[in-house]
């Protein structure tokens, strides 16, 4: 009995340790952002800072966070929408339409997953600059608007749909666009949500491409803006920098809390049922 109890105590101790490891830094982030300006340089630190928003105002003054937000919203909304449409159309075509050697074409498209971003960086910069898209929304969005992983997830999902429902609609004389819109997509809703959310997270967090394709402060997205804020503020004003970090992180954290199941399923999906 005592051995079992000891085991239980140890397990709970482990859980508390892991909890502290992950909640600690997050709490540090939010509490630092909400401190009064001078409080951040106190040691030992004040753990319950209250609700002060001067740091946010400071960050907003030091860097054009309004622009960063607008840019991030446009790039994320635009990019994720196109990605989702691309994933849907391609997946539907591969599952429900006939075409010679379509499975070969599918594999070729899937192969793009093997191309690392390092290899595409220089050439895409050259391509985008030849298109005249440097420092534009098109340049920020279009190179990332293709969908390979999302297409793959959706295709696998569509393959599991009951074929006779689609067949029945076809016999009724419905065209493919109507079948897709009224029959297939409603059945794919859970996977569409997953693919859409992953696309949103990817676009919002993207770093290296927005860094090289934009060259004025006003066109930066939030993650790059954060880098700008830090180099602007030096290492001095940690309160404002943490406030900026909260502005970058919070939208995705909220999204995660709202759609935890879809996100974990989508991101870990490739692992278990490979």
């Amino acid at each position, binding site marked *: 009995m005592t051995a079992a109890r000891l085991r239980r105590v140890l397990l709970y101790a482990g859980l508390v340790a892991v909890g502290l490891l992950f909640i600690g830094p997050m709490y540090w982030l939010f509490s630092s952002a909400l401190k009064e300006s001078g409080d951040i340089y106190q040691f030992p630190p004040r753990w319950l800072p209250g609700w002060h928003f001067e740091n946010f105002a400071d960050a907003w003054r030091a860097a054009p966070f309004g622009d960063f937000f607008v840019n991030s919203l446009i790039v994320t909304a635009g990019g994720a929408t196109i990605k989702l449409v691309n994933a849907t159309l391609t997946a539907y075509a591969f599952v429900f339409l006939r075409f010679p050697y379509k499975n070969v074409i599918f594999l070729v498209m899937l192969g793009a997953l093997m191309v690392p971003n390092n290899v595409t960086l220089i050439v895409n*910069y050259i391509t985008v600059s030849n298109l005249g898209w440097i420092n534009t929304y098109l340049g920020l969005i279009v190179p990332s608007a293709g969908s390979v992983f999302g297409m793959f997830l959706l295709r696998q999902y569509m393959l599991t749909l009951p074929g006779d429902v689609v067949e029945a609609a076809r016999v009724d004389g419905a065209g493919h666009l109507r079948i897709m819109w009224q029959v297939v997509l409603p059945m794919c809703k859970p996977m569409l949500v997953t693919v859409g959310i992953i696309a949103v997270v990817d676009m919002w967090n993207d770093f290296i491409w927005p860094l090289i394709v934009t060259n004025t402060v006003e066109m930066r997205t939030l993650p790059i803006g954060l880098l700008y804020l830090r180099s602007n503020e030096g290492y001095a004003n940690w309160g404002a920098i943490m406030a900026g970090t909260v502005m970058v992180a919070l939208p995705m954290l909220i999204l995660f809390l709202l759609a935890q199941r879809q996100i974990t399923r989508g991101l870990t999906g490739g692992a278990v049922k490979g």
Partner: protein
Amino acid sequence: MTTTTADRQGQTAGASTGGGAPTTRGRRRSRHHWRRRRKEYALFLLMISPNLLIIGTFDYWPVIYNAWLSLTRWNMLSGAPRYVGLQNYENLFSSSSFHGILLNTLTFSAAIVIGSVILGLAVALLFDQKLRGRGIVRTAAFAPHIVSGAAVATLWLFIFDPAYGLTRVVLDPFGVASPRWVNDADWAMIALIIAYLWKGLGFVAIVYLAGLQNLPEELYEAAKLDGAGTWTTFRRITLPLLSPVTFFVLVTSIIGTFQAYDMIAVLTGGGPGDATTTLSWYVYQQGFRASDAGTAAAAAMLLFVILLLVTGLQTRFVQRKVHYT
């Protein structure tokens, strides 16, 4: 003439979907069929072409053009790339600073892989126990994975601040002074590894947890009947059965570390000196700071080949290993 060959092609394609009626019932019917099929082909092309165009332009074309660029010298600003053969590769391999960069990449990658597998599995085993509050901890652990790397790195930069950071708060009671972390060449890589592990650990743990929950219950009951202890069961049953998951973690960690930019950019900028410059950061530096497209492209090709080998290995290994079910 064209109709018949195309029809046969269409039939092979149709066979793979399992759809489509037989097309051998008279000429008129077959002509009608062919018209419908041609419409279907056109629709197929219409639906996949935007995606195909983007992927072709921004994923496949870069591989080809990058391979060519790696054989040239070019400053990316003016003039045209000038062919220099394998000189960029020779320069890379003979430069001792590049050896240091390869070593950095290896250190970073190996530390993340080993750390992810050991800690990820440990945390997953913990999450697999019926403990109160594990749901909250699980959520908290996964959350950093979906937050921007730039934000996570900025947070850790503050945590690592020797004067005001959380590390001082943690180390102070033990009478230990905080190291200078990112500003000290000996500590910068360790700082990068800690922050990177923290961001990805929850993801790895959830992947392992899913693997654990998929393991067949009967095996454990049989082991219990045989009187196997916890450790033996873990070593002889859990670990081997989880090997496909471990391999997935291995490969995704390697791929992730080889493409890491945001955390390096924010935490260290590759410094101090070259202390945290990995192959991926080197590509960015050479291409966009030093304006040396040829060297950047050569380094990128090298990286691409390494990743292809890793992925190829995974495909072979997993195909062999995953068939136990």
